[in-house]
């Protein structure tokens, strides 16, 4: 585990830093403070949803329903607003509803023992469908400016976006839990071998259940932020985000089989994808090419470590044979 941590994570962090430096030097208008604000706003939803997603994938499961949960809370936010609820009530309510969506996922997966991939593909359709039922194709837009303005605004009108505080605080909390507490270690244990973890006294089912609840709650929060950022509650908000999040998490070095990966790697993965997109757009490279880059990076993020380790394995075997001879 620690070996993997040292190699792929460091590589992806180094690559991210390299891309940021090169882009600032080569791409016009990339390194400006305004562009920094834009990038932070663009990576906000991916990075927040990626935090609990990292936990879930580390335990060897997956949650594909997050973007639909986001859409559902966004829809409901518009509906509540139209029905006269105050925004101060709506925001916690939406987070709770997101958590409830997570409770259903968690129950189906840990309570009934169903495969998380199939369950969350099902709830992906279900939650998005409910979002459409709530708001149809309509949009609700007249949210109060002091809230929408906060999400898009910066601290004191400077270069640091308000939402960056939120990102930093949540990333720190998740990072500390994963890397510095028994809970975090138990997640790795579950992902490495759920049965062994169970025998070691870890409550596997309960832990996974709460991960889905947290994932739902965070998706609910992101639904609120998304709605406020675009001043527009719509059922199709965030459609397809789950793929971007999973891509970023895997790119960050988390193994889809569980048990491996680190949060700094994931954060680097998100920043790398967002920065690449931003730089390519500034260079007028079409969104199409972006798709190819994202897909290729995703496959390579797993393929390359595999190739490297198999080449290294061959080399060591040869060396062994040589020393034997």
């Amino acid at each position, binding site marked *: 585990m620690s070996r993997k941590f040292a190699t792929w994570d460091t590589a992806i962090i180094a690559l991210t830093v390299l891309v940021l430096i090169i882009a600032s030097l080569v791409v016009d208008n990339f390194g400006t403070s305004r562009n920094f604000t*834009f990038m932070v706003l663009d990576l906000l939803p991916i990075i927040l949803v990626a935090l609990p997603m990292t936990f879930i994938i580390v335990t060897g499961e997956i949650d594909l329903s997050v973007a639909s949960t986001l859409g559902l809370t966004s829809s409901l936010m518009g509906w509540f607003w139209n029905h*006269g609820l105050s*925004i*101060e009530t709506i925001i916690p309510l939406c987070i709770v509803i997101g958590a409830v969506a997570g409770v259903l996922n968690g129950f189906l997966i840990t309570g009934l023992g169903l495969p998380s991939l199939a369950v969350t593909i099902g709830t992906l359709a279900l939650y998005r469908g409910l979002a459409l039922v709530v708001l149809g194709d309509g949009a609700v837009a*007249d949210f109060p*400016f002091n809230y929408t303005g906060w999400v898009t605004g910066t601290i004191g009108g400077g270069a640091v976006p308000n939402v960056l505080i939120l990102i930093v605080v949540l990333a720190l909390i998740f990072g500390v839990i994963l890397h510095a507490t028994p809970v975090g270690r138990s997640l790795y244990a579950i992902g490495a071998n759920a049965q062994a973890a169970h025998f070691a006294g870890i409550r596997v089912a309960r832990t996974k259940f709460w991960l889905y609840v947290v994932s739902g709650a965070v998706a609910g929060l992101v639904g609120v932020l998304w709605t406020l950022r675009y*001043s*527009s509650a719509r059922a199709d908000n965030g459609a397809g985000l789950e793929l971007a999040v999973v891509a970023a998490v895997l790119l960050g070095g988390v193994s889809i089989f569980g048990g491996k990966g680190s949060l700094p790697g994931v954060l680097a993965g998100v920043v790398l994808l967002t920065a690449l997109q931003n730089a390519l757009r*500034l260079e007028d490279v079409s969104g199409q090419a972006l798709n190819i880059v994202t897909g290729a990076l995703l496959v390579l993020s797993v393929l390359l470590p595999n190739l490297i380790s198999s080449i290294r394995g061959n080399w060591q075997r040869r060396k062994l044979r040589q020393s034997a001879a």
Partner: protein
Amino acid sequence: MSRHRLAAVLAATLLVAAGCGGTTKDNQSDSAGTQASATADPNAKLKEGLKIAYLPKQLNNPYSDVETSGGEEAVKELKGEYKKVGPNDAAASSQVSYINTLIQQQQDVIVVAANDPNAVCPSLNQARTAKIKVVTFDSDASKDCRDAFINQATTQGIGESLAKMALEQAGGSGDIAVLSATPNATNQNAWIEVMKTELAKPEYSKLKLVKIAYGNDDDQKSFQEAQGLLQSYPNLKVIVAPTTVGIAAAARYISSSSYKGKVQVTGLGLPNQMRQYVKDGTVKKFALWNPADIGYLAAYAGAALASGQISGAEGDKFTAGKLGEYTIGKDGEIVLGPPTEFTTENIDKFNF
């Protein structure tokens, strides 16, 4: 035990939050700021070398391709720099990142067809703060976040034309249905409203509007909605589709089904897409403005704004190349002109 306590805490939080009122839809103050217009100098010369960027609803839409091709022509005449960018999907939020990029690139004019009138607003206002002129076309953004809007035709004119064509095609009486874009499409809804007022008039008393279906401007969805309409309403005589995607899909379905010749399709369509169905008799008549002229007019309006010739105020006048002189109307609207009707006689004269 702890689980119950958590639930109780959450419930209490909600109740407290609900109890102390807070900001609701009814009591919020409208604080969206509007920008003061600069004064215009009608004699200012149009600047050369202006960077004019087009941001359609999405790429890969043949209709907006024609619109922007007109823009490209005009920008060339203006000796400016033309650029077209856009998302692959028409989701409300996907345009925002592109607007941000255009701000970073310091364009002079952004010509945008808004996917959502509000979602693009904060970014467009940021662009205007950065001295970029914003012209909307095709689908307007809220009027306090753009400088001018190119309206393809008056809402009244299109609504009337749709009702008139429906009456002709139905032969004076019978059931008609509308196949629209999305239920919240600003244009389509306004036209359908006018159409409904028209239908209430005595000369339309024998026409019955049985259903408004939505194909979401998605080819396949529109196709299936057309199919559903005919299954649900056996006496349907005319499908009116006020969207180029919808009319083409409806015509394609009818032309390949047993309803061909019995059910008419009309509405707003692109001649190139509809040519086949006009020739095989599925469609007798449909209408549209020339979309290339919209993009063309937008470029000149943007250039006039960026050169200080006009400020976007009502009554400002400017000349748009081959299209002649235009006057800005209420709320910064510039109306292109009346729509053209296409029939089997004239369709071969148009190529867009």
